[in-house]
């Protein structure tokens, strides 16, 4: 794709949803109302682990104003020992996450729900539900959960023949790792710990559900996929999918945390029972206690190299805390950890460990930051031991076209080396540092994903364009779609309206996740638009009474292909649209694909910090991320993704963590004590977009949104080491921890 020739691709056009958002008109799920609407609320377990002996809802049902009460019995039962997969989610876990069945598995686990004519009555009714619990011993920490005497969460789960909290294992092997270490001249092995962290979306989960007497159901909700909402609700309630219309509200952040459902099936059942539309919205406290963070972890990484810096062997073991039900992102941790490097002998192991905390949900490059944190810190120590520049060590071992990765693929053309080169050449890398300041680098990889997408491109009667796709727009994908459509049609992007269809108005589209949306929707939108262009040429041919092959589409108009085709004045989009009925009918095209070819994304980051050695505080002074994005369809939103991921990574490294009290309950379920960085905590986060086009994509796009969260944990840790000469092996590197190391208590 010739960059210079593009008129709209690569331009910072105004986003289609911009006016709605800045004027406050954008409708989020919590903004929806319906006549006759009532309020649903959830009763949650106060215990981190307990058998549910009985639930008596009779007093709640008798309270005036209460219209429906439900428990797990009102949802389809999925036996606990039989897997029912829906994409990467297992419905037997999903149904138990939505509402506890045999056991309450974490403090905050839903056990019942009510719907009443006001929020106050619903809250009152929750207090009248009598639950008889048999309280059980509990375990939250990932290492504790693997001890031989740890309380077992699920009796049917076995590991190595014994009941265990280790619910799954994943292994990648390449070459002969023992032989590799035997040949290595320098070996570094370290262990690392990270805390679970929340995605921290600003908008709490919310939905409104209406069920008509004939079963026709409408769901308005905030999610990363209206089709995911439809499918999961169908599974959990037994409704056929054609009876459910899931409408995507504007979304106030998801970062992976909204790729599953919490409230929707509950509201659906309450609506069905009460005959009234039911609205539900979580409080921030509920979001923290019961929606998915990502895993905490315990990892060990060992890397061996020759004295001149050639890495010969790498081994990683990653134990990830799944929460109450299996499903840790071990694939991201074990699969991405070594993926940026060309290492002949690799053994990477991931373990999925359950414990009594809320079940994890996807979080931006799920698992990959955990793996990269360990690997990139060990590489920093290795570079130190080898007396090598840490970027040069990475460059020397960088994966390239043809590198065989331990997680499977042999890479096509990738842009990892380019990110390191750009970092090496950037003035940031040579800028002077002051006292107590340090600089760290780290790299990272994320798989990226293709998958199912649908698009419909329609030409309006007045010659404008409406594009409908099926993915929630979280990162500016509508703007990218407008740029691509305008580019292909050769028209002003303002003539293109881009909408997100609901499950009844557009074909199946997989959820917004895996950095797939701009990638996949660009493919279906491109193919749809190309079909439309073919139709436009055919219509012009009909008007001119020439062969359709003798018509070309250029600069937004049909033109005869050459002198042989005949002499006709060009026909614009508007002129052809005006004559659509007489030339064959409405003009539009839809394409549905299971897209493939989403190649991996790579990034390298440079971070400068300053440590206050008396207070133990760490400030990020300067941060630059270098990422191969394939092609930046809309650079502003590419930069936004890069900056957003870095901001989250800095929070993960320095200040974010779940804290539990002695009863096993989250002790910091608010943004005051769950410390995400605020604006003033961060410098301007600089970005350098690198474009090595993905050969398998019409515009060369690679996924962008997740890679930026992979390197920061280690980049910050390595920078702190550079400032202090001391390494930290656990996150967050919060002030008390930093100070305890700088001035040990017994000093």
């Amino acid at each position: 794709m010739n960059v210079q020739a593009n008129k709209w691709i690569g331009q910072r056009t105004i986003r289609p949803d911009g006016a709605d958002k800045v004027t406050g008109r954008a409708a989020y799920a919590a903004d929806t109302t319906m006549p006759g609407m009532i309020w649903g609320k959830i009763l949650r377990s106060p215990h981190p682990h307990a058998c549910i002996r009985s639930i008596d809802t009779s007093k709640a049902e008798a309270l005036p104003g209460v219209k429906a009460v439900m428990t797990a019995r009102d949802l389809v039962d999925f036996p606990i020992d039989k897997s029912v997969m829906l994409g990467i989610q297992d419905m037997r876990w999903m149904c138990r996450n939505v509402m506890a069945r045999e056991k309450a598995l974490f403090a905050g686990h839903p056990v019942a729900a009510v719907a009443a004519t006001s929020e106050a009555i619903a809250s009152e009714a929750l207090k009248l539900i009598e639950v008889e619990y048999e309280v059980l011993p509990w375990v939250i920490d990932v290492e504790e959960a693997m001890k031989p005497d740890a309380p077992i969460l699920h009796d049917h789960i076995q590991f190595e023949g014994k009941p265990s909290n280790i619910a799954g294992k994943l292994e990648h092997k390449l070459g002969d790792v023992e032989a590799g270490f035997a040949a290595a001249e320098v070996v570094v092995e370290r262990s690392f710990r990270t805390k679970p962290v929340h995605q921290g979306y600003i908008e709490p989960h919310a939905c409104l559900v209406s069920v008509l007497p004939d079963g026709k159901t409408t769901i308005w909700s905030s999610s990363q996929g209206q089709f995911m909402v439809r499918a999961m609700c169908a599974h959990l309630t037994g409704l056929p999918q054609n009876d459910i219309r899931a409408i995507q509200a504007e979304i106030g952040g998801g970062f992976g945390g909204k790729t599953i459902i919490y409230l929707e099936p509950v509201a659906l059942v309450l609506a069905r029972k009460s005959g009234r539309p039911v609205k539900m919205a979580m409080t921030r406290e509920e979001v923290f206690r019961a929606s998915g963070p990502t895993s905490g972890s315990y990892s060990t990484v060992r890397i061996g190299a020759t004295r001149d810096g050639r890495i010969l062997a790498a081994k990683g073991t990653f134990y990830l805390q799944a929460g109450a039900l299996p499903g840790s992102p071990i694939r991201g941790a074990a699969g991405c950890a070594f993926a940026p490097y060309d290492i002949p002998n690799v053994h990477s192991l991931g373990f999925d460990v359950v414990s009594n905390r809320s079940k994890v949900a996807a979080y931006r490059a799920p698992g990959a930051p955990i793996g990269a944190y360990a690997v990139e810190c060990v590489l920093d120590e290795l570079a130190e031991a080898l007396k090598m520049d840490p970027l040069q060590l990475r460059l020397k071992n960088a994966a390239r076209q043809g590198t065989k990765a331990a997680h499977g693929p042999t890479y096509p053309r990738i842009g990892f080396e380019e990110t390191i080169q750009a970092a090496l050449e950037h003035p940031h890398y040579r800028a002077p540092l002051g006292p107590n300041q340090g600089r760290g680098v780290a790299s990272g990889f994320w798989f990226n994903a293709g998958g199912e997408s649908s698009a419909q491109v329609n030409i309006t009667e007045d010659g404008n364009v409406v594009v409908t796709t099926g993915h929630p727009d979280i990162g500016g994908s509508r703007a990218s779609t407008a740029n691509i459509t305008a580019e292909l049609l050769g028209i002003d992007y303002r003539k293109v309206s881009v909408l997100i269809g609901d499950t009844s108005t557009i074909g199946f589209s997989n959820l917004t996740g895996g950095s797939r949306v701009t990638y996949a929707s660009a493919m279906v939108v491109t193919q749809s638009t190309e079909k439309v262009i073919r139709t436009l040429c055919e219509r012009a041919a009909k008007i001119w009474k020439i062969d359709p092959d003798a018509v070309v589409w250029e600069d937004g108009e049909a033109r005869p292909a050459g002198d042989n085709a005949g002499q006709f004045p060009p026909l614009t989009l508007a002129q052809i649209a005006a004559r659509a009925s007489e030339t064959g009918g409405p003009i539009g095209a839809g394409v549905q694909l299971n897209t493939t070819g989403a190649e991996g994304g790579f990034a390298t980051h440079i971070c400068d910090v300053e440590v206050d050695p008396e207070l133990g505080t760490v400030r990020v002074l300067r941060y630059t991320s270098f990422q191969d994005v394939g092609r930046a369809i809309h650079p502003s939103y590419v930069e936004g993704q890069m900056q957003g991921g870095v901001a989250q990574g800095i929070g993960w490294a320095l200040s974010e963590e779940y804290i539990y009290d002695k009863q096993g309950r989250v002790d910091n379920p608010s943004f005051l004590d769950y410390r995400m960085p605020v604006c003033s905590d961060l410098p301007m986060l600089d970005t350098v977009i690198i474009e090595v086009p993905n050969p398998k994509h019409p515009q060369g796009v690679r996924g962008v949104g997740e890679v930026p969260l992979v390197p920061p944990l280690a980049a910050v840790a390595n920078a702190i080491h550079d400032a202090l000469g001391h390494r930290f092996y656990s996150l967050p590197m919060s002030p008390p921890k930093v100070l305890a190391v700088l001035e040990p208590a017994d000093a």
Partner: protein
Amino acid sequence: MTDIRYLAPRTLDEAVGAFAAARGAARILAGGTDLLVQMRAGAVRPGLIVDIKRIAEMTSIEETADGGFRIGAAVSGAVLGEHPRFGQVWPGVLEAVNLIGSTQVQGRASPGGNLCNASPAGDSVPAMIAADAVVTVQGPDGRRQMPVAAVPAGPGRTNLAPGEILVSFTLPPRPRGAGDAYLRMIPRTEMDIAVVGCGVNLTLRDGTCTAARVGLGAVAPTVLLVGEAGKALVGSRLDAAAIEAAAAACRAACRPIDDKRGTIAYRTRIAGVLLKRTVGIAADRAGRA
């Protein structure tokens, strides 16, 4: 689901009358940045809310004839910040009040609410204690005065008698060579709660410290006046030994808890660090050569 009554009287007598008559079921509303948050969380459920923002005495700032200040208890941080003189005379008190929350919170939050909320971490309180501010309270039995340090009784509890309302803060006139400062340690740069807060107010004459008061927050159930720290500074030329002695006095005064916001060891250590830094700023403001 009981109803809440709301009153916004124009006189203090009316306010005290209604507040006292409600016998503990009522709450005073100044900026509401604590009260409304606590009500939404279900932590307090008042039957009556008495809004004091329409009472002139409680929302005005007055520079007294002797050069002191009288600040209404419900004056917002933003209004105090816009006063032409106050920040020149009491920069430490002002910076403490202005550290509360964000720009939005500043439009409402008051020093009276900060003190009566009785959080050990309230930012303006150590600075007010260091400033030797005195509060005027009015109740069914009339008016009385008490030092700021005497107001908090423990986390969330004050020594105000039933029906008493905090009316105003009085700050004494400033001698020449006086300076004050407030610093807090928070893990973030804003929108956070003090892990330790330190207010220092001192007077220098020819380089020698002639008076010093130190207030320390978030290290005990109430904000502390650390008398020993002040004593360690008085008579010195703020040399390293005197400052270290004052820092040691601060560490010794700490009776903190281990909680999600900080450990005992961390808070204790930071108390000394902040003392040193705050003394440095106050001394510069006092005109240290």
